């Protein structure tokens, strides 16, 4: 063996940015994450050329998956043109040669912050959710060693108690986004800060979901056809945001998750949060031959 056999010819950057050993570590952990759905798997989480907290966990998963034939969609808050979504998408295509798309139907990988697209994802598609805080127990137990033991013991009593207290004090569960959910009947996970509207889309889905927190160095997965059940009491059903009756002021679509825009003189206007769904609806209404996929919600009702 020589020194040169240990290393490779100099290259400014590896293909897909991550070096081979980083990718192998991620591959090993991604397989374990699939094998134990919803269970947080620790990984080394290399630094990437983006600040921690800006999607570095999702990015590492995407960079491990991507190849020159991939088509990548990146959204932030549902929008493809958000500044950070644009920045991440451009980086992925620069280091991998993958194609970029805004269309959920055309993507092989969808990397997202805070939303699941409204169009139903297929069994050949991968959703990569960026996760700021992977620990659903953080609010009741900030120490991660203790929280980890609670997961090991399936000890979720403190979490149930918090939800119960909210009902007693406020008349309802006040959890907004990142609604804690039981995966495969064993591990409680955070679905990342997606709205409650999006959590049912992960339950018994056809697609594969990875959730990755780069800063906190944890990744977990929801394989296809896996139960994802929001924690609710039997007499208090799970409630998604009250958006079923709202209409997008630009595209005219209704029955989807909306962005609320305050308007001068009081009141609010609404725009559909899945921005490319809105674009496609506009293009379709203008006569373009555009395919809008089947959506998880129809007329504001979830029906997978």
């Amino acid at each position: 063996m020589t020194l040169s056999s240990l290393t490779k010819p100099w290259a400014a950057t590896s293909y897909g940015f991550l070096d081979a050993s980083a990718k192998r570590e991620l591959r090993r952990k991604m397989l374990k994450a699939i094998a134990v759905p919803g269970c947080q798997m620790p990984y080394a989480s290399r630094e990437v050329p983006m600040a921690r907290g800006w999607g570095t966990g999702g990015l590492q998963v995407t960079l491990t998956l991507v190849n020159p034939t991939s088509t990548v969609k990146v959204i932030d808050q549902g929008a493809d043109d958000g500044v950070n979504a644009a920045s991440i998408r451009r980086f992925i295509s620069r280091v991998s040669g993958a194609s970029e798309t805004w269309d959920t139907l055309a993507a092989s990988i969808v990397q997202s912050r805070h939303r699941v697209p409204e169009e139903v994802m297929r069994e050949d598609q991968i959703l990569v959710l960026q996760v700021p805080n992977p620990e659903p127990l953080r609010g009741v137990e900030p120490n991660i060693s203790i929280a980890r033991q609670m997961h090991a013991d399936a000890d979720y009593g403190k979490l149930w108690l918090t939800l119960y207290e909210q009902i007693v004090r406020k008349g309802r569960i006040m959890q907004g986004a990142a609604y804690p959910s039981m995966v495969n009947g064993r591990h409680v996970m955070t679905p990342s800060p997606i709205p409650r509207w999006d959590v049912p889309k992960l339950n018994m889905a056809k697609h594969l979901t990875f959730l990755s927190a780069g800063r906190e160095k944890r990744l977990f997965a929801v394989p296809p056809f896996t139960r994802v059940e929001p924690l609710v009491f039997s007499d208090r059903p799970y409630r998604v945001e009250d958006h079923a009756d709202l209409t997008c002021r630009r595209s005219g679509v209704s029955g989807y998750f909306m962005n609320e825009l305050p308007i001068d003189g009081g009141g609010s206007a609404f725009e559909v949060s899945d921005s490319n769904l809105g674009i496609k609806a506009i293009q379709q209404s203008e006569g373009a031959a555009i395919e809008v996929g089947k959506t998880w919600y129809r007329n504001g009702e979830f029906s997978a």
Partner: protein
Amino acid sequence: MAYVATRGGEKAIEQAERLFRQDLGTIDAARVETIKQTMPYLIDRVMGEASLYSEELAALALAQTGGELSEAVLVLRAWRTTQPRIAIARPVQQDEILTQRRISAAFKDIPGGQILGPTLDYSHRVLATNVLEGKPYAPPAVEAATKPAPSRQPSLADWQRQQGLVAPANASDVAPEDIPDLTREPLLFPASRAHRLQSLARAETGGVLALGYSAMRGYGNAHPTVNELRLGEAEVVVRHPRGTEFSAGRVRVSQAEVTSKEKGGFLELGFAATFGWNEVKVIAAATLDLNSAEAPVGSPVHEEFYLYHTESVEASGFCIHFKLPHYVTFQSILDAMRDAKAKKAAAEQKPAETRQTEPAE
């Protein structure tokens, strides 16, 4: 096509980056060289936090980020990600370090002597404003000692061990390739000592100082005495695949040992070391190490608390991520809040009908 008109994002970020870079102007090798030559302590700090020893790359990172320290550290760490690990260096022993400065506050004099070396400790911190009036400041020349100090100095802790003051060193017989490497595996708790010291070595200087200082002020239970503080240069000795050991070069290192009180008949030692010369960081870090053993969970001197919160890239990244839009999560909170208010208003109008009477499961 009104929606597509919002597609300003990609152009905006491109131009925003250009604005930042335009302010810094053209970066050439001369600028990098100047930074490297004139800011050695800044370079040291950045190399330590980046856990990447290259004065040249650190100077380049500083030039490229205009001295935005957390950005400079991030760009170096990201570059580090792309580099393969080709060898594992031999562990460095204290008495092998080419020592420029080595002091102890625990004794008036120590075997080998107190070597002050380069320091501003006893200087008067006066701004040299004359420089701005066209009178360059040329420091007076150093007068060589009649008897130069030996370039290598013994370890004070070794002397203390011989005297029975410090517990015998628990030399663990771990092969170099089996030493846990924080940059290739996640930090888990309780952390191995290797992980704890590695994490402190690359921690953010200000963060380590803040938490170390909190321990010194009384949020820890051990006040440090500097047993030994050492600045020097260490050989990086690696093994050629054919078996020969050779030095690949020298790196500047700092290390601190602090002690406070006896435990089990011996003085306890806290330890820290880092790339580059950064005394504040190693004293504060050694203080945290010293305090960890009996720290209550959740206190600033508990290892999970201080290791997580002094991680420079993670802390700064998460802090600035709050600039990203959060309107989806906000919308979700608003929805729950409005519904709760509506429920409350309804309950106040018709209390008997809507009040829950049976406890929920």
